[in-house]
């Protein structure tokens, strides 16, 4: 029994050093992408790494052009959440969650009352938070690629080592998922108020011309305002080995651990407890010192602590499969929905566009609608004149010099009679 526990300890502890040594930037990027693709399939924009410090009303400055953002989103699977500008003092929870217990504005605004139910509470209580559910995701994992596990939970490398398998298929279930939101209309009001107070700051991000790959482009910047977040507290991971045990056993090499031998239920139960004790010690800071000392005495060397994100517990094991339950101390945000506001000339904000629409290439109206005013005499004159070679460029240059820089179609049939009159006078008649 002691030998078996020692063997378990070796494989569990080995993964810490092994994963650290073999982890390359490329592998980490793959972890991020595969995880994010799974979350994206649920029509949620993934957060990576997982964090609890994202909430509705958070405003991020997006400095990447739209085209580049789409490219990054498709390549990496997620958008880095950098440049947090502010956390808007949004209201609207009381209105949106009318009748929902203990949800309101001010001190009752989520998620604080769930994270910290009372000032001296040490345990979170999300039992009253709105529930969410995600489908089960499948994945494949291979040790030959350096434990490049496609999900950001630690159970997978642990499980792979316990299975003593070079490759495995697995499923991941996001349990205890929650969501909450603030009405987009309220974030709209809040961001407009904030932008007016910070217009000098935003002005430096107004659209600017630039050259990229020899082409003239317009660099545009956005404010991304979070409207809804999704959180997860518990992750279930099941791994199924792609082959049986004992393929490469030899003298001096620890034999695979028989995790659950029904013929010897007593030993199986002890092994279960032993593994969970090891995992619990590895997951806690105290365990990394005191626990490792006792563990080291068993195997005769000082093992590296296992870096786990939450508490990992072995839930079930057979000769070809293991299941773990990984629980975070408090639920972490795994994804969000947001609105993007383009920063216009002078630091003004454009109409909001759902971030997901933009990233997924769904149709986005260019700006807000205007009412067709008819084509008056000046409009007719402009239409005929701009069709002459070279005149369209002249008209565009003239419009750019007018501050607002409206489009030609807006000029011709929008509410711009004075501007049309000036075009006719200064450009058309002036050139004759």
């Amino acid at each position, binding site marked *: 029994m002691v030998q078996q526990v020692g063997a378990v300890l070796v494989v569990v502890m080995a993964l810490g050093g092994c994963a650290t040594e073999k982890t390359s930037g490329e592998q980490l990027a793959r972890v991020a992408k595969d995880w994010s693709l799974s979350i994206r399939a649920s029509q949620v924009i993934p957060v990576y790494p997982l964090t609890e410090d994202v909430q509705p009303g958070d405003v991020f400055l997006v400095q990447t052009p739209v085209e580049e953002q*789409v490219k990054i989103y498709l390549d990496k699977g997620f958008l880095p959440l950098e440049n947090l500008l502010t956390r808007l003092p949004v209201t609207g929870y009381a209105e949106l969650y009318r009748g929902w217990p203990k949800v309101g504005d001010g001190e009752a605004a989520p998620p604080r009352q769930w994270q910290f139910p009372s000032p001296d509470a040490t345990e979170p209580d999300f039992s009253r938070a709105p529930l969410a559910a995600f489908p089960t995701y499948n994945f494949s994992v291979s040790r030959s690629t350096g434990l490049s596990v496609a999900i950001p939970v630690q159970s997978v490398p642990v499980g792979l080592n316990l299975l003593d398998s070079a490759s495995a298929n697995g499923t991941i279930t996001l349990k205890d998922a929650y969501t909450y939101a603030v009405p987009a209309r309220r974030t709209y009001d809040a961001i407009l108020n904030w932008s007016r107070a910070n217009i000098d700051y935003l002005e430096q991000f107004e659209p600017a011309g630039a050259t990229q790959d020899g082409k003239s482009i317009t660099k545009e910047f956005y404010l991304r305002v979070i409207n809804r977040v999704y959180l997860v507290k518990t992750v279930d991971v099941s791994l199924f080995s792609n082959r049986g045990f004992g393929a490469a056993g030899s003298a001096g090499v620890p034999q695979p651990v028989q995790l659950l031998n029904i013929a010897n239920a007593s030993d199986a139960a002890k092994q279960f407890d032993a593994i969970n004790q090891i995992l619990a010690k590895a997951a806690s800071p105290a365990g990394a010192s005191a626990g490792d000392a006792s563990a080291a005495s068993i195997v005769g060397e000082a093992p590296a602590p296992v870096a786990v994100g939450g508490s990992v517990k072995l839930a079930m094991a057979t000769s070809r499969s293991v299941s773990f339950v990984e629980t975070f101390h408090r639920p972490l945000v795994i994804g969000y929905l947001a609105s993007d506001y383009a920063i216009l000339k002078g630091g003004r904000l454009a109409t909001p566009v759902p971030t997901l629409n933009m990233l997924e290439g769904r149709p986005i109206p260019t700006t807000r609608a205007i009412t*067709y005013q008819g084509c008056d005499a000046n409009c007719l004159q402009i*239409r005929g004149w701009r069709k002459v070679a070279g005149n369209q460029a002249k008209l565009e240059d003239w419009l750019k010099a007018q501050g607002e820089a409206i489009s030609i*179609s807006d000029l*011709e049939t929008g509410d711009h009679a004075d501007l049309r009159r000036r075009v006719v006078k200064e450009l058309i008649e002036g050139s004759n």
Partner: protein
Amino acid sequence: MALQPPSPQTNVPRDDTGNVVDAMLLDTRVKWIAVVFEATVGGVDRFTVTPYVDDPTTGG
């Protein structure tokens, strides 16, 4: 600095829809335009003309 993209226009009469579309397409960023029937007012069909900078059929 580029001009602002063309705005969607509502209440466009049938006989001027082509000209409005033509003016919107002067902006090379516009990839796709939706013409949606609104109503018939006084015997004249009215449309909403909406330009898009992304092609919804390809996402690009």
